[in-house]
């Protein structure tokens, strides 16, 4: 892909020399030391790097959970740095879908209700529309038959699917995942990657923070962080199919 082709696509995320310093006592921890990049609509980006390199800090910036110490962040064209807490909350609600490592589902709550959660904070949705959107999102992640299962009645993979459905339900500009496969076994991780690839093909923009270098080969672009700076930002020319990788895995033993 050349520069010109890229420029024609819509920019979803733009970071302009974003720095994030933390004051710990008298010391300043420089978690991000000036990060700049653009992410276009429909990209599947992995963010990798050693522990402490600033991946989570970066993702918190992208997810509008935090604001840069300096530099500017444009989400879908909107500058975020000067926004109030409440404005950022609204932005997260409308434009961001989060997938966490620990699923973070509400206890004793059904799949549908969990997925409805972001829409509860959006007055434009009626109860009926909320439920319809939640069911649609659950069908998309392959849980159409588990609508009323409670979170504690589901496997890790199912819970993560619910979490992904919850991230999709508000039709976000970007899907952010921090170690979304970190708690899952190999097989389930691949199933999750199949799902992410499917979402990618459907046009979703995905940013996926991971420790696992293998995952990079299933994404369209890889950003590598070191010490709060971008070490490498590469386009993946031949994206591997997660579905094929899953099929190649040794079959689980039934006994």
């Amino acid at each position, binding site marked *: 892909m050349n520069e010109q082709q890229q420029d024609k696509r819509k920019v979803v995320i733009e970071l302009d020399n974003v720095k994030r310093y933390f004051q710990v006592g008298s010391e300043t921890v420089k978690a991000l030391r000036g990060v700049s990049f653009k992410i276009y609509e429909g990209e599947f980006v992995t963010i990798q790097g050693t522990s402490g390199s600033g991946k989570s800090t970066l993702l918190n910036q992208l997810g509008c*959970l935090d604001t840069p110490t300096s530099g500017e962040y444009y989400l879908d064209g909107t500058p975020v740095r000067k926004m109030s807490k409440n404005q950022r909350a609204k932005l997260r609600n409308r434009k961001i879908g989060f997938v966490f490592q620990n699923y973070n589902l509400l*206890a*004793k709550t059904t799949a549908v209700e969990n997925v409805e959660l972001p829409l509860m904070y959006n*007055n434009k949705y009626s109860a009926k529309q909320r439920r319809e959107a939640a069911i649609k999102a659950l069908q998309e992640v392959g849980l159409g038959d588990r609508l009323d299962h409670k979170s504690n009645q589901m496997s890790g993979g199912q819970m993560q699917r619910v979490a992904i459905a919850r991230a999709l339900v508000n039709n976000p500009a970007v899907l952010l995942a921090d170690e979304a496969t970190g708690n899952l076994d190999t097989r389930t991780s691949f199933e999750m990657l199949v799902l992410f690839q499917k979402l990618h093909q459907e046009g979703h923009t995905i940013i996926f923070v991971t420790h696992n270098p293998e995952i990079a080969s299933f994404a369209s672009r890889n950003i590598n962080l070191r010490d709060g700076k971008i070490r490498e930002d590469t386009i993946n020319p031949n994206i591997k199919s997660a579905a094929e990788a899953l099929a190649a895995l040794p079959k689980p033993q039934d006994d």
Partner: protein
Amino acid sequence: MNILNLFKVSINAVANNKMRSFLSMLGIIIGVAAVIIMMSIGQGSKESIRKELSTMGTNLLTIRPGADMRGGVRQDPSAMQTLKMADYQRIIDEKKFVSYVSPEVTSSGQVIFGNNNTNCTMYGESTEYLDIKQWELEEGANFTEEDIRKAAKVCVVGTTIVKELFGEGKENEAIGKNIRFKSIPLRIVGVLESKGYNSWGMDQDNVIIAPYTCVMKRIAAQTYFSSIVCSALTEELTDAAIEELTQILRSNHKLKAEAVDDFTIRSQAEMMETMSSTMDTVTIILVVAAAFSLLVAGIGIMNIMLVSVTERTKEIGLRMAVGATGLVISLQFLIESVLISLTGGLLGVMLGGLVSNFVVPLMGMPSSIPAWSIYVSFAVCTFIGIIFGYIPARKAANMDPIEAIRHE
């Protein structure tokens, strides 16, 4: 998030933790029930005293020796001997607005018949006493003017005396028998109809009424009266009767214009007022004591809510991450604490209602729940929920979503 959704979320949170919610409600339940019970006993006593005093005759007037003591000043004992025979005589001679008059001399002691004895109060009265009190005789007759003149050793007794000395239901046997009060033999000429206990818990049937002349001369050995009881012609004429009695007594006592009365006249209406206000004071004290338990209950709710907020840090972080503002989060917890205290209040009102209606009467106490106490209970519970839910709600709202969501 709209309010309806917030309520749903809060109801779910309370329902998901039934045991804990119930325990944090318990303080409120007990506190509100206590307040309701106290108020109902207070109100009930007031009503029953009112009823009782009005059946005793609202035109009843009581003259006591000594100046008005409502100020609480101690009086010289000699001041308590101002009501004399001459006063009684003049009232009888000059009364226009007063119908019945009875001087009163009382004495407490033991009354004996055969091997039986009991303690009671002896009332020395005129023949008109029963008319004033509107008491009826069950057996026999009242003593006569002749008995008064002769200071005759006769008496009319209440049913408790009969029961203690002669046995249950022996009213007709008692007539004509001689009982002894402080070694003076008295012949029973009549038995009063039973009136039961009054709301002070006093047995109104544990009385002996004898001619006042007899009690003064033979028993109490005194030349002055403890009081004089009268009745006004009608209830409307009570004030006129008080005025009349005041004039008679002042002129009889030769009081100068500027001197204060050396006697006090109380009407039944005034007595009712005094009783009511005393009951009000007692009720207020009890209710305030019960209300303190509500304060403690509120602190209990705050405690539980703080624990709950800490426990649900991750949930709060998640809600914030998907777009809940601090205000919405704080409302969620505020509604939850109001819900707990209001539900507690509802259960407390029900418990208080049950106890006041079924248990309190079993203990022989009157009760009547004032409707406003229920509304006040609900208002107070809402208030408690907001006040004590505020700190936990604010704690939740001020959480940093990044830290909250990583909280383990």
